[in-house]
Every structure is written in C-alpha cells, then in structure tokens.
C-alpha cells in the first residue's frame, strides 16, 4: 500500500449544461478511498448532477472524471464496467416493481456479475440481513414501506460488491418516521469503510458520518471542509446564510 492512497474518485473541472442552463459550472473534487463525502446545497445547486455524472447517468459537457483510476469516456464497455463498481441509491428507490425484493437483488448479480443463482441468492439474503429486513425477501416492492424499499435498494447496490456508493437524496421521499432506519444503515456502511458520496439534506448525517462536507450553490463549490468546521465555523457568507435557514 502506498503511503498516500490512490483517490477513489477524481473530478477535474466538471461542467454540465442543460441547454442554456449551466447546472454544473467547473467543479473539481477528490474522494479518497474509504471516505464519506456529503454534498449539500439548495435545490438546483447542481449537487445531484455532479453525483449522476460520476456513473455517467448524465454525460458531462466538459471536464474529466476518474473512478478507481479509470477515466470515464464514452466507451460503453468502460461505462458498464464502472457502473458495476459504483452502487447508486435514488431518491425514488427505483426498485423493479415486477420482481420480489430478493429478485431485485439477484437480477444484476446474475446478468452483470454472472453469478450462479445459488450464489446470487445467498449474497442477496446476506445483504437483506445487513439492512435488517431478511423476512421481506419474497415480498414485492408495492407491499413494502418507503423505508423498507430504500433499504432493499441499498442491499441491491451492495450485492454487486461496489467500491463506491452514491446516494442521491436517499431520505427525501420518506415519511419522517422512516428516515432513521435508512440513515442507520448508511451510518453502518460508512463505519465499515465504504467510499461514499451522499447528496442529502440530513445535517445530522453530515455531522456524524461525513469526513468532508461540500457546499454547492449555482453549479460551483462554495465551501469544502471537515463537518465540525462547516457547521461551527463556516467561512463563506453564503454558507452561513444557508445554514441559518435550515438549522433552527
């Protein structure tokens, strides 16, 4: 092992334009292996777009992205290979409604990782255990609560043994009483040493689990620092204004 570990994600001068709107306007970031980065900011600040560029769900307008040392290009094989290493959890869960929880978790293992049915099933059950709902294996998403669905979605991503997990506002679509069960799973994951990039409005999670907090506004990074510093002693006026609005 090197004394200075190779960064898991490197983003250089990323831009993404939607028509005339500059959603991301020159963002550079580095995420070290095993670290948790939390991106916060008002809606429309471009934070989700940055996240979606990392696994190429959005094609960047400009700039460069390296994931685990591989540069993201338009090469489709590379993109599929990188996506298999990068788990993603969505705001709307996006479980496959025609498959049971277990089948949701085994599908990509079988088709992408080419695991045997028995292996995929064993791993799926392990992951369901890990997120605390092994008894829901044979239930369809429509019969699960929002929090349970999101935990299945996390298990589905983890079953691929990803090197990185991306979370795009994972608790924003949940009823308040279900937020904690999802955050608990994410905290455990952070403690286990997973490299994570989390876009969220949950300041508690940022304080407790983040190694670094990035504050974005209007497509650029306003401030980037450790969580203690960010919440107790923000440098930028825009950050202070944002925090005063959400922390009451």
């Amino acid at each position, binding site marked *: 092992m090197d004394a200075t570990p190779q960064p898991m994600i490197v983003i250089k001068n990323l831009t993404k334009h939607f028509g005339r709107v500059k959603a991301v306007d020159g963002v550079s970031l580095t995420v070290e292996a095993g670290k948790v980065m939390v991106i916060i900011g008002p809606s429309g600040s471009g934070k989700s777009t940055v996240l979606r560029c990392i696994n190429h769900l959005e094609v960047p307008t400009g700039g460069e992205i390296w994931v685990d040392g591989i540069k993201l290009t338009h090469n489709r094989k590379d993109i599929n290979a990188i996506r298999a290493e990068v788990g993603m959890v969505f705001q709307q869960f996006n479980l496959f409604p*025609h498959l049971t929880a277990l089948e949701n978790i085994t*599908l*990509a293992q079988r088709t992408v990782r080419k695991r045997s049915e028995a292996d995929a099933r064993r791993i799926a059950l392990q992951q369901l255990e890990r997120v605390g709902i092994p008894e829901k294996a044979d239930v369809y998403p429509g019969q699960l609560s929002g929090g349970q669905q999101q935990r299945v979605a996390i298990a589905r*991503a983890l079953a*691929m043994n990803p090197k990185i997990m991306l979370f795009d506002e994972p608790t924003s679509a949940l009823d308040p009483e279900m937020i904690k069960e999802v955050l608990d799973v994410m905290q455990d994951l952070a403690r286990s040493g997973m490299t994570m990039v989390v876009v969220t409005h949950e300041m508690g999670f940022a304080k407790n689990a983040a190694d670094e907090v990035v504050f974005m506004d209007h497509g650029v990074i306003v401030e980037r620092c450790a969580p203690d510093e960010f919440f107790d002693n923000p440098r930028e006026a825009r950050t202070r204004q944002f925090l005063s609005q959400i922390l009451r």
Partner: protein
Amino acid sequence: MASEPAHATPAPGTSQAQVLGRLSRLPWWLILMLLAGVFLTYQIVNDDLYSFIFGKLRQGILTTVLVTVVAYLFAVLLGLIGGLGRVSKNPVLYNLATLYVQIIRGVPILVQIFYFAFVLVPALVGLLNWVGGLVDPQGALATFSNQDVPMIVRVVVALAFAYGGFEAETFRAGIESIGKGQMEAARSLGMSYVQAMRYVILPQAIRRILPPLGNDFVSMLKDSSLVSVLGVRDITQEARLYMAASFIYPPTLNMLAFLYLSMTLILSLAVKWIETRMGRYGH
C-alpha cells in the same frame, strides 16, 4: 290487467322505483345477444336451409382462425421490433421504424393488402429471379413465378405488417410509460441497454399494454375477413361464394355475423382472463 297497480304485491322493502332500477341495471344487450344466439342455434339444428349454410361457412372457420392467429403473432413480433426502434436513440433504427409506422398508419389496410399481393410480391419474385440469374447465368435458379406465393401467405404477411405498425405504437407507448428511473436503476447496476430492456422495462411494459394488445387480437379476427378480397376461403369468402350462387342473402349474412360475434365474444372473454392473470405482480 294493465290497470293493476304496479305495487299491488310489494315485497317487503321494495318499491316500484327499486324494481325499475334493478331492471335497468340488467345487461340487456347481453340477454338480447344470447337470445339471438339461441335462436340461430335452434335454426341450425332444425332448419334445413340454415344447417346447409352453416355447413358451407364451417369450411372457412379453420382458415379464419389460422389467418388471425398467425398474422397476429407476426404482428406482435413486428410491433415489438418497431416499438424498440421507435424508442431507440440510434437514428437509423428510429427513422426506419418511424417510416414504417407512418406508412402503415396512412394507408387503408385493404389497399395495403392489394399493394402487398400485387406489387411487392411480384417485385420480390422479380428480384429473386434477377439475383438467381446473376448467381447462375444458365437460369436454373431463375424459376420463381408469382403463383409460387399463395394468396393466403400474401394476405397473412400483409395483415401482419399492417397490424405490426399499430402494435409498434402500442409497444412504444408501453415502454415510455415506464418511469425513467427504472432504466437508470438498471443501468446504474451495470446492466446494458439490452439487458435493462429485456429484464426490467419490457416485462413491465408488456403487462401494461395487455389490454390494447388483446383488443387488437379481436380486431384482427374481424379484419381477417379482408382476406376474402384475394379469394382466400375464410368464412366471409364462403358466404360470398354461396350468396353469388344462390342469391340467398339474409340467412347467409345472419349466419356469418353470428359466427364472427360468437368468436369475438369467446376471444374477448379469453383476453380478459389472461389480463387479470398476468396484469398483477405476483401474489
């Protein structure tokens, strides 16, 4: 008797309005259709003329069913391919599929059948012979003629292409009705576009388009009567032949309509049964 008050013998808790309400909710259309069916069945059994006509038309039932089923299966296949082309980001596939759909939707099916039978098939035969002539200048291969392509084949293919254009739009609508997040979730797990379509999008889309697909199956049964214009002996053609020879119109057409109606009714019920079985997720 008519002057007797309607509520002369009221059942407890029943008023005239309630009785009328209940009567008006009965499916009278179904009762009338069943009565007509019973009447015609009775005629077939007891009336010599009707039983003779039934015997004539019966010879075409197999052709009608065969044309319907085969043309429909190919139409769904063409529709699936066309629908995938319509949602494709590949400009060649998209434009080919759109051209197909637009042509099909803009030309009457009857004209399409004529066009296929008398323009495209001869052109294809000519092309085959030309290619055969190139490969083997002695002309041993260039021996196809238009008669080698039976009318029933031409008409089945024509119907399949005609309906395929509509099914393509049905498939497109079904695929587009599945939220963008499903494709993103599948792709973010590393699945290819084809895998995502096959395992995630299409299984959901097909469940959603079962009702229109089923309706089109029933429509295909009715439109299979168009094969009679090429002399293919389905039940419509059998009826036309009999009428041309005998000038006996009403019983023949009664029988023809009755046969179609019974077949479409049976088919509709079957389609409904399949929909309720496949339309839900598991449980």
